[in-house]
């Protein structure tokens, strides 16, 4: 690996030792061209439309007023709530998902369980939205199955202050698609942990914990971080599940946008678009932090 980077460096240095900016062959750009064309046409262009419309006032004409409204309590609260629930479900989902992925790949379970788990994970990830919210109403709602079960044992869940229609409830529901997402996405990384490393560590007298702390986790950290930001984004942008479960009474950014753009009551689409642009910036910022963390974690791999 080292020789490769030395080669490219020697290509870039001139006779006098001064550095020339690295020349990337056109061929390399061709490899990523389809990606940029597609994302350009179907992601970036609409985002630009979004940005343009966020500058539109309710009576037409351009204004920065929508962005000024971003600083209002309502909007800030909704961003805060969205970030909170996204962080919570990303971390929880990441942890539990990682454990499950480990359990089915090297936890000693029969290999068939891995196939079942991956297939189910694929399906569970699809279950988000109204079907999932409904399933939870059937389970933990006031007339839900589990609620009824608790009643049989004399415990009235809802009198204890528990409610499905709360932050806790929403987290519980979100995890239903966050965990499978983590499982499916981190499995390839777990497969990359070579058995030889494990055996070499054991040969040198390392315990389980030491193996994980010094070998496995450092190798896996970039992948884990990357997947967690995927989970964060997934939760951040979720709308259908939250709407179905909380009737828009919960303060999330995506619900706020829906109210302005789609609802029957308020109608300031420009504000909705501005809130959406705010989400784009928050996401960009998260990626910035993530790439710093990721570069740090990759250092030892080189």
């Amino acid at each position: 690996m080292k020789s490769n980077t030395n080669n490219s460096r020697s290509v870039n240095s001139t006779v006098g030792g001064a550095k020339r900016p690295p020349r990337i062959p056109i061929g390399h750009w061709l490899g990523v061209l389809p990606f940029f064309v597609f994302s350009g046409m179907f992601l970036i262009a609409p985002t630009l439309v979004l940005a343009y419309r966020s500058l539109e006032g309710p009576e037409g004409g351009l204004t920065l007023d929508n962005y000024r409204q971003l600083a209002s309590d309502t909007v800030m609260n909704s961003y805060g709530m969205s970030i909170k629930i996204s962080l919570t479900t990303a971390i929880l989902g990441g942890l539990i998902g990682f454990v499950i992925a480990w359990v089915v790949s090297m936890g000693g379970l029969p290999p068939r369980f891995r196939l079942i788990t991956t297939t189910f994970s694929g399906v569970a990830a699809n279950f988000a939205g109204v079907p999932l919210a409904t399933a939870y109403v059937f389970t933990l709602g006031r007339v839900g199955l589990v609620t009824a079960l608790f009643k049989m044992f004399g415990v009235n869940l809802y009198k204890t202050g528990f409610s499905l229609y709360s932050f806790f409830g929403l987290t519980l529901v979100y995890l239903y698609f966050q965990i499978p997402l983590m499982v499916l996405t981190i499995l390839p990384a777990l497969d990359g942990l070579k058995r030889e490393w494990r055996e070499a560590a054991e040969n040198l007298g390392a315990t389980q914990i030491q193996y994980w702390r010094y070998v496995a986790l450092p190798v896996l950290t970039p992948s884990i971080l990357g997947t967690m930001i995927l989970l964060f984004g997934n939760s951040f942008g979720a709308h259908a599940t939250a709407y179905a479960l909380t009737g828009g009474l919960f303060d999330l950014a995506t619900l706020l946008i829906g109210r302005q753009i789609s609802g029957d009551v308020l109608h300031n689409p420009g504000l909705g678009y501005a809130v959406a642009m705010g989400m784009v910036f928050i996401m960009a910022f998260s990626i910035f932090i993530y790439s710093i963390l990721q570069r740090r974690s990759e250092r030892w791999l080189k």
Partner: protein
Amino acid sequence: MTTTPVSPAIATNKRPVTTQRLGSWLIYLVVSLYFLIPLAATFYWSLRGKKDVLSFEAYRKLFADTSFLPAFSQSIINAIATIFLCLLIVVPTAYWVTLRLPKLRPVVEFITLLPFVIPAVVLVFGIIRLYSAPPLLFTATYNSSRVVLICVYVCLSFPYMFRSVDNGLRAIDVRTLTEAAQSLGANWVTILFRVIFPNLRVALLSGALLTFAIVIGELTIALYMAQHTLGPYMSDLTRSKVYEPSAMAIVAFAITWAAMGIIDFVGRGASRQAQKTEAE
């Protein structure tokens, strides 16, 4: 390198293995309960179609509706097309970003996460605005709109596909593999299709499963693009009926499970084949 630590090391690891296995079973059981109970509850309610009695009435009504299967098959075809396209675009991109264009990584990662922060309703209105007028007139007919829909789905799958492939690439030593292949005289097409793709089996499978899930159930964009796929069908059902949606959820679950089982099986079949040739 001493040989004496080997025996005690193996001996001490035998006991942790059994407790480890027990722990694995326990964790798996608990998490399985978390996932299965809501499904069981949905199934139970789907049997309440007739008053006071458990019956399959809701299922009967569901299958009596003739618009269910066409919607479902449209979604399946869209999903397969999306998976193919997405694989073809994402794998080379991830490969090049990892190997040759590391500076582009933050840009690419940001773009792949854009689908999360553009609300679907905003995205579809933007798409319609952009591509409903000449010279970029793509929304004139149902089928041309369908192509646009698939292209949008490809972009919506970027986050999942890219992350899976990226994790997969990290797990294999891409650089060494590439160098080895190059030293054997392979060009980049050969490297991609005969070295990289086969080694990314698990990652591609994960990405494919997630993509399938997204396309099958997608609602908002299909609705506004006037496409008759499964998402709008299910949404319609949910709005008006009480018991049929639960039956619908269970049926969709079962069929999606079957389709994913097939994808999984196909992928594993190929991997078994590849392993055989590797062993030889």
